């Protein structure tokens, strides 16, 4: 296992720059998710770590040793997509043993390692079988075992669980997580799915436009996003944004929205002072409610209520802003109904208005 460090890492494809000089460090045994929309530079970053792409500028270090000029196969990196091609003519045992035989490991050691990983991956009973006839889940585990038996320096997973159904996603996610807990590999998981990133990783590196927007533990990324892009990209259902005025109050600051005024909690005073008159406020759907008393109550028209059984999602149009709020399953206002929407100021986030276009670019 290895620690990884990137310094002013740049990737260019011809005239197009995909990664703009990023710096990050990943500790030995850490699980980091690289999260961002397509085209954000996450895959280029991963491929530079793997050695599949040339580094245009800057350096990557494994355990302090610069690996820019080390070939991919000599970096000892395991990748999830290796799992797809098992050798059909040899047993599961020999499939797993293959990388060790190529490395001239002696037979007794091979046997020890194959049996060890087979037990951890719950494959012991399958060792004598051929790949044909395995379920896709079993085949995936064999592929992973083969990738991991080499004791790789780092294990890279590139969106291994997109396009699975809800139940399989949980299964696969928990399997990957338990894999990390069992083996303590340095793991990097590249995904556009914020839920997978938060659920799996020790830290999340949020990327957009070839830059790191924030790198922090999941709670931090979720509750204290560094900018509007992170706020908008992380969270399900998505956070609500609205333009607001920012005004000085006696002893503090407030925001104005559709003729109403909401006094800001102290933690936002410095931000309010910095951003000046025009702000972009954001509030998560879990911190909006219907009908409760609050300093900022808005009347909105219900667009639709989705009954998810454990909770209801209510979409309410306030002026030209559509707010999504999470409500108790017993709260189910009808389409077109006028309801009072309350904002919990304790969880309000505030960004400069200039970041509004970054938020818009997500949906495009």
């Amino acid at each position: 296992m290895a620690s990884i460090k990137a310094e002013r890492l740049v990737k260019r494809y011809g005239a197009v720059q995909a990664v703009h000089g990023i710096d990050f460090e990943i500790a030995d045994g850490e699980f980091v998710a690289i999260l961002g929309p397509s085209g954000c530079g996450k895959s280029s970053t991963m491929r530079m770590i793997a050695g599949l792409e040339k580094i245009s500028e800057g350096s990557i270090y494994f355990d302090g040793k610069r690996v820019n000029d080390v070939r991919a196969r000599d970096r000892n990196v395991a990748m999830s997509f290796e799992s797809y091609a098992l050798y059909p003519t040899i047993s599961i045992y020999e499939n797993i043993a293959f990388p060790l035989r190529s490395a001239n490991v002696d037979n007794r050691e091979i046997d020890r390692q194959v049996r060890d990983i087979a037990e951890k991956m719950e494959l012991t009973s399958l060792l004598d079988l051929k790949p044909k006839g395995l379920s896709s889940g079993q085949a995936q585990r064999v592929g992973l075992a083969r990738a991991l038996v080499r004791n790789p320096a780092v294990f890279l997973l590139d969106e291994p669980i997109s396009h699975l159904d809800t139940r399989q996603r949980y299964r696969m996610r928990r399997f990957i997580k338990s894999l990390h807990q069992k083996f303590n590999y340095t793991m990097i998981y590249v995904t556009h799915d914020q839920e997978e990133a938060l659920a799996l990783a020790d830290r999340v590196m949020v990327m957009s436009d070839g830059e790191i927007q924030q790198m922090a533990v999941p709670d931090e990324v979720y509750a204290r996003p560094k900018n509007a892009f992170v706020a908008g990209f992380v969270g399900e259902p998505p956070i609500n944004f609205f333009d607001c005025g920012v005004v000085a109050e006696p002893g503090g600051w407030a925001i104005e929205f559709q003729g109403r005024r909401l006094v800001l909690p102290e933690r936002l005073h410095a931000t309010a002072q910095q951003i000046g008159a025009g702000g972009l406020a954001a509030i998560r759907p879990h911190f909006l409610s219907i009908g409760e008393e609050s300093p900022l109550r808005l009347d909105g028209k219900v667009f639709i209520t989705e009954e998810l059984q454990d909770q209801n999602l209510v979409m309410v149009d306030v002026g030209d802003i559509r707010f999504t709020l999470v409500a108790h399953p017993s709260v189910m206002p009808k389409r077109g109904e006028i309801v009072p929407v309350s904002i919990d100021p304790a969880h309000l986030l505030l960004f400069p208005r200039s970041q509004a276009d970054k938020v818009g670019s997500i949906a495009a």
Partner: protein
Amino acid sequence: MYELKSVHKRYGLAKVALRKIELTVQDREFLVIYGPAGAGKSTLLNILAGITRPTSGDVLRNGVSILRVPPEKRDAAMAFENYALYSHLSVGENLAFPLKARGLGRAEVEERVSRISGILGISHLLERRPGFLSGGQRQRVALGRAIIRPADIYLLDEPVGHLDAKLRHKIRAELKALAEDLSATVVFTTTSSREALALGDRVAVLNAGKLEQIGVPADLYHRPANAFVASFVGDPPMSFISVEPRRQGDRVEFVTADGMPVAALAAEAVSNLREEAGSKIQVGFRSNEVRIAEEGDSNALRGRVDVIENLGYMKIALVGIGGDQVSVSVPAGTRLGVGETVAIAFPRDAVHLFQNARAVTHAVPSPGV
């Protein structure tokens, strides 16, 4: 109204895609077909569209067989996962195509193209050719082309599967509202539990070609017919603990292999529990039906935290109890570590009980607890 009567579909000799499906699509209903990959969802839509012929069985529309009616004569609007857009036409022309084919006037065509492209967030792409679009954009154009025209039935095969989470959320709400406003009949397939519950007036759970259960979302969620539906509907999935029944007067107590009590139900509530050796009895819990125990909780089981998943607004702790694992929703701020021992409080009477994967009872209060 559409009816599938004992519809069976086999590909070649071995592969059975659909097994004797009995299914009714009511007028003006939003029916979601929910199942894993390979369940037969697309085959079912293709049979409704007339693209695929069932091996046996019948398809009726308002009581009349339409097996011999070719697809173009069925008034079905379709959006399939593989897009199938006209590559030589712009996005705007693709959207307008079904309207022009029906002889609508120019002003009305423009009005509808503008409305639908606005709803789907593709107004800025109208001049482009499909070849210059991302997968998610193409998918929205395909969806737009299906819903832009009036149709007897809309058949939408995972029409938002390739969109990012934010867009999915927005478009599924728009779709539901549009279907309500137009009183449209919609059949929609998905592999997402949230999507199925959010959209469906009714949801049909399909698994390996078999219809496991069909009902309103609350039925599937609170009264799943079997352990498959229970574990497939809901996010996170339901978890199960294996138990043995012990009759105690007018109650039946359910205990783990170690003798720890999990639930107690009135004997009459579990009267259809069969006494047979070797049968597998499980109690099912949703993650929000259990919690980390507080002091004084009487019905708590101790277990070890195996995995913690952070969802931002909450966490899910996966707690190993005996040989089973139970998902427990915990508030976002909770400090909990992997490997820690915790006590889980179970609602003794609010349980789902299964015998050999068949549901025995759901959430029946027991006397004296």
